[in-house]
């Protein structure tokens, strides 16, 4: 379902706002929540926990073969060792794209996503069209994202049906020799770490 409540008529938006406000008031009066803590949680996802964190990890893996090996061996430990991308919980698994293999991630049952590293998932990831189709027609889904892969390339879809979480390690784009971590990270898109996109190509000089 692609619609959002704020696309609906004004009375429904007000209805949700009022209902949620009422629930928050009741929970506050019972001493079950602290609204200032809710502010901190919202702020964390709006400002700190997002795909830039994942992009730094991918860029580092492109530059440092030892880190890449460690990432593929135990992604939670490897990412935690970097120290600057926030707290990473257990069972993060990095899966590597190769010239013969393209990985994609879905949660057909709900919305499981490597939130620690990529932030909250986009609406399309949680939507019925993506969840229903990618496990059967991954190429058709990729085409809708503008990605066309050679027919002989194996496509592997990881359905996140347990508490393991998957990060796609995309292939480093050609023409990025000599790029530093920040320059490489700027090419890593959120979708390239889900597998519905590829990294951006470096801009060609004048």
């Amino acid at each position, binding site marked *: 379902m692609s619609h959002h409540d704020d696309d609906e008529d004004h009375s429904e938006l007000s209805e949700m706002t009022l209902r949620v406000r009422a*629930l928050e008031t009741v929970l506050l009066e019972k001493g079950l929540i*602290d609204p200032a803590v809710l502010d901190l949680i919202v702020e964390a996802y709006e400002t700190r926990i997002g795909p830039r964190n994942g992009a730094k990890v991918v860029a580092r893996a492109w530059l440092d073969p030892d880190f890449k090996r460690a990432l593929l061996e135990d992604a939670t430990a490897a990412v935690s060792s970097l120290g600057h991308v926030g707290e990473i919980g257990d069972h993060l698994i990095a899966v590597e794209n190769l010239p013969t293999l393209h990985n994609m991630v879905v949660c057909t049952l709900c919305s499981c996503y490597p939130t620690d590293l990529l932030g909250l998932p*986009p*609406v399309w990831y949680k939507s019925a069209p993506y969840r229903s189709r990618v496990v059967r027609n991954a190429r058709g889904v990729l085409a809708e994202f503008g990605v066309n892969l050679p027919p002989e390339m194996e496509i592997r879809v990881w359905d996140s049906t347990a508490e393991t979480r998957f990060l796609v390690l995309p292939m480093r784009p050609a023409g990025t020799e000599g790029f530093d971590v920040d320059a490489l990270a700027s090419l890593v898109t959120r979708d390239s770490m889900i597998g519905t996109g590829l990294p951006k190509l470096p801009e060609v000089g004048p």
Partner: protein
Amino acid sequence: MNGVHDMGGMDGFGRIEPERDEPVFHAPWEGRVMAMMRAMGCVGGWNLDMFRNARESQPPSFYLTASYYKSWEKTLETLLLERGLVMEEEIVASRSFSGSTVAGQPLRAEDVSKALKRQSYERSTSAAALFKVGDGVRTRNIHLPTHTRLPRYARGRRGTIERVHGCHVFPDSSAVGAGDDPQWLYTVVFDGSELWGTDDDPSLKVSVEAFEPYLEAL
């Protein structure tokens, strides 16, 4: 349960519509719902699997048409009402009629980072894993009326053990309040043709994360 949430392989939902420069939340109330769920997850007395079970149990017409956070909001109400933590009349009146019945303290600011970090679901066990990497397995054809994590499209199918993840909390048990009941967890990979028939894309492979009770040796 065989609910509408289990939608892998279904037809008719239309095109995927990515939103350019999508905001984290589309309205302030969405952020409040997400944050309340996180905060109440620490004191409400339910676990992740109970949350999933409650959401999957929503009427199919609601599940399919409500936005994600609208569905979450309804799930939060359900979990609170079921446990007697809040009464419907209180939400309608926008005030509490009585004190909390929960002994725990609300989530504190200094604990937010910890609360947002994913916890470990791995548990120790003395049982040996039944399967090893490379083993052929068949998923069981099981249709529980309660929460389970083996999608319908992957039931009764032949696959191969690709990874062994250790012993994890078993959602089928945890969701119904029957404890962690830890079980070995595996990545099981299937050929696309095993799932969808031989006319489909021969280059497709799909894996699920499968708990040992979902599997039998080939």
